[in-house]
């Protein structure tokens, strides 16, 4: 009998087979961008399966929204994507304005563009710096934060807060800019522009960086659309979609007359790539490198939009307009509006019933959908690639868990 067992090839195979191991990455882990927990099924260094577990930061903001007035909900949107509070304020304000059929003044419109694009730069700077951290280089993180601090200083001057602004609000903005702010903003842009080249030298074209990101976590355009991905994750896969251009009229009207090119690869080239490094040979459309590069291009794009907004804002003569009352009644009806936040398309669904409090508030988070594609991207990658892929999705847990 024992002879039979010894000769059984399956037994020998069993002897040399390596065991799979379940590893918990997070919720306390340096590179899961907050309290994300990933359960990895690994065979040595090779990851065969990733399962994200979320909800550690869940506050049920949607339920809170049902118990306060629409304008009171603004601070809660700050705390969703806390790296781009301005853009979240804008998304919610526009959704409420859409339901109330409200139009802000021309001056408020240009100021909103200006502030929202500054917020986009700040968010992308964190995304870029933290991505360097995920790949094991610390310095770009601090360079990015150095510049972000300057943006936060500008924000602080404008609204008094550095992280949770509640600046853009339903019906306009809470305050006008202080005197001299535009000049300081322009000075910052002039200072910041040459520095972008340094980021490209440190990361985008760095041989090790390209090796670590090129061809890793390739997301096909079909899969990206099917998973509801949006923002740089979608455009990094070569899908030409940007809500600032393709969205609903109330949002696109904000960018009326502004000239900008959507940062997406068309016919093998990015817009204005002559000024920036060429796509390296190792990079495949839809991989981590492209997602990163799209973000870097959007920083430049936002800078141009800010310059245009400064001109238009200073040409405006009228008033900024008054925001609605705190307990303003919102009409019956339901609206859904998606705006282009730095992380992707942030949607707010809102049902009014004639009272100040919405009947139902729903936040469709971009990072939520962007993260859901992670298990698909991590098949057969190495452990070191998991932070690289998670970082390239640029998620914020506050927005995912809400």
């Amino acid at each position: 009998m024992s002879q039979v067992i010894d000769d059984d090839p399956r037994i020998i195979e069993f002897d040399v087979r390596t065991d799979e191991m379940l590893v918990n990455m997070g919720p306390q882990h340096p590179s899961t961008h907050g309290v994300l927990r990933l359960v990895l099924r690994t065979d040595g260094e090779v990851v065969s399966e990733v399962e994200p577990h979320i909800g550690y930061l869940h506050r049920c903001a949607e339920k809170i929204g049902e118990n306060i007035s629409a304008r009171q909900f603004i601070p809660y949107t700050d705390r969703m994507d806390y790296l781009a509070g301005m853009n979240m304020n804008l998304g919610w304000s526009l959704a409420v304005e859409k339901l109330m059929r409200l139009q802000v003044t021309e001056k408020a419109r240009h100021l909103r563009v200006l502030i929202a694009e500054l917020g986009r730069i700040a968010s992308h700077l964190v995304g870029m710096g933290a991505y360097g951290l995920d790949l094991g280089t610390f310095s770009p993180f601090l360079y990015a934060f150095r510049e972000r601090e300057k943006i936060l200083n500008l924000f602080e001057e404008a609204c008094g807060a550095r992280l949770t602004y509640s600046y853009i609000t339903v019906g306009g903005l809470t305050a006008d800019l202080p005197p001299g702010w535009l000049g300081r903003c322009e000075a910052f842009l002039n200072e910041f522009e040459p520095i972008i080249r340094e980021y490209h030298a440190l990361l985008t074209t760095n041989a090790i960086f390209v090796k670590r990101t090129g061809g890793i976590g390739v997301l096909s355009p079909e899969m990206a659309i099917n998973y509801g991905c949006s923002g740089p994750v979608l455009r990094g896969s070569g899908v030409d979609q940007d809500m600032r251009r393709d969205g609903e009229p109330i949002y696109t009207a904000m960018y009326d007359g502004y000239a900008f090119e959507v940062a997406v690869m068309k016919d093998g080239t990015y817009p204005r790539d002559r000024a920036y490094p060429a796509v390296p040979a190792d990079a495949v459309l839809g991989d981590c490198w492209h997602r990163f590069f799209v973000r870097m291009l959007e920083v430049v794009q936002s800078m141009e939009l800010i310059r245009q907004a400064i001109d238009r804002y200073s040409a405006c003569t009228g008033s900024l307009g008054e925001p609605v009352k705190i307990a303003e009644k919102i009409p019956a009806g339901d609206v859904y509006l998606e705006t282009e936040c730095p992380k992707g398309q942030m949607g707010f669904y809102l049902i009014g019933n004639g009272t100040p409090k919405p009947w139902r508030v729903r936040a469709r988070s971009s990072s939520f959908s962007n993260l859901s594609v992670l298990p698909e991207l991590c098949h057969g990658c190495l452990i070191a690639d998991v932070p690289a892929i998670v970082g390239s999705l640029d998620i914020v847990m506050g927005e995912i868990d809400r």
Partner: protein
Amino acid sequence: MRGPAFVELLEAAVPGGVVGTNLEAIDPWVEVVPAAVADVCRWLHDSSETGFDSLQCITAVDWFESDPKKAAKAGWDPHLELVYHLWSTRARVSLVLKTKLPRWKDDQPGQPPEVASVAGIWRSADWHEREVYDLSGVRFVGHPDLRRILCPEDWEGFPLRKDYEMPLEYHGIRGR
């Protein structure tokens, strides 16, 4: 594409599926019967005329008023409404799809109503349906892995229901 002609196309594709429309609303919507959700979605996704290749959001709205005085004036019977927001990346148009469900299956409180899952059509529905199940209590039949997603797995009740009450205590932590 969101005009009456489109609704006719939809009615022809899924006979008896459409039960109501409102094309004058800020966001025009189409209401379908719960049993036809999967068929309608499949058609919307596959048909070349529509090609809604992306599901942006699923929302469950609990239409329930606990105050009997207000409920009498509300003008609707208590029910649960599912709202699907679709988007076509090619045509760059959106579509709102609604369907009405009973609040509880067979009127037994605690039993989530059932509707067909669309996770096989759009992968984004996977997590969104889990979230709706978790917070609003709708069982999606045919979902590959219907578990709670934001709340802990042993959480009881569905927080976004209007009659939800926070538990007094959860694993020794005071709730109220």
